[in-house]
């Protein structure tokens, strides 16, 4: 029996042949002992498989099995903890960051100029936290005034970690 006939016998058993071809196949099988034997074997095997599929049980408890599913669903549905900044915050930062830096530079230049030798004692003094050039302090003892200039928003996030004595109001 060739392979084509073997596969047709199987297709006949599985009801996969068109009606007309199925009737022809039934006649062929009736006339062919090998085809009849093959059909019987395939039928037996199919019957055994369909009727006796192994009864496999999940080897985990309901709660344990469910807990992993629930955890994974929760993880996938959790919103992102780090949110993107709003578009307007990005726009403001783009405008004010360079302007703030420019203003700090101007004040620094003025103060340096005023602190050059020749200026009288008791003149105002200034201090720059070199670890963070974005923070600048101006003190005028005669007027009892201290100004702290911070470039905002901080370019490097340093403002969040300034030592307590740098941001001091007197």
């Amino acid at each position, binding site marked *: 029996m060739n392979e084509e006939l073997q596969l047709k016998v199987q297709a006949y058993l599985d009801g*996969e042949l068109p009606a007309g071809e199925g009737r022809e196949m039934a006649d062929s099988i009736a006339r062919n002992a090998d085809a009849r034997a093959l059909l019987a074997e*395939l039928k*037996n095997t199919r019957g*055994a498989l369909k009727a006796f*599929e192994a009864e496999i049980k999940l080897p985990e408890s309901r709660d344990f099995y469910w807990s992993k599913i629930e955890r994974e669903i929760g993880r996938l549905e959790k919103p992102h903890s780090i949110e993107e900044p709003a578009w307007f915050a990005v726009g403001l930062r783009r405008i004010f960051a360079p302007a703030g830096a420019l203003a700090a530079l101007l004040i620094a230049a003025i103060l340096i100029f005023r602190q050059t030798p020749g200026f009288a004692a008791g003149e105002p003094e200034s201090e720059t936290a070199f670890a963070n050039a974005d923070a600048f302090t101006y003190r005028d003892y005669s007027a009892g005034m201290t100004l702290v200039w911070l470039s905002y928003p901080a370019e490097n996030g340093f403002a969040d970690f300034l030592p307590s004595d740098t941001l001091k109001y007197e």
Partner: protein
Amino acid sequence: MSDNAHSSADDSTLVRAAQNGDMVAFEELVARHRDKIYARAYSMMRNEEEAIDLSQEAWVKAWQRLKQFQGESSFATWITRITINLCLDQLRRHKRHRSESIEAMDEESGGVERQMPVVIINPTEGLERGELRQRIDLALGQLSYAHRTVIVLHEFEEMEYKEIAKTMGCSIGTVMSRLFYARRKMAALLSDLKKPE
């Protein structure tokens, strides 16, 4: 819906509740069908750990796609199809990691099965049901992945050739030939345990 109502509700009611975000209803569906889903994953993968992981992944996917379930088939059929697809993906990944082609090996070995003499005896006669189940399971374990998958899809899931071909991404002719070789190999393996002592 109360816990008691969940346990007494039918699948379609639970599915509707779960589609509206009722996680307890979904948990009830998992509890009802977890054995079948795990069994299907195990029958394809033949590995307990992988079968547990894949079946759980199938439930997570089912939750995510629950809104897409329109009730054209039963919920059990729908979640089983998700499981089968995940298993097939995993088997393809396994195949990529192996140097040899499973398909080539299967077709070569298929030639041997085609030449085997027909097994006349009925393998189900004279055996205890439990023993027979066990022997069938052992015989299935000796088939290649491709041959076992086609047996699982056709005999257990009752899928037609066309549907199997679509699911496995092959031609109907390949499905027919794999199914034929797989059945013949099963007949031979089962006949071994029927031989007189």
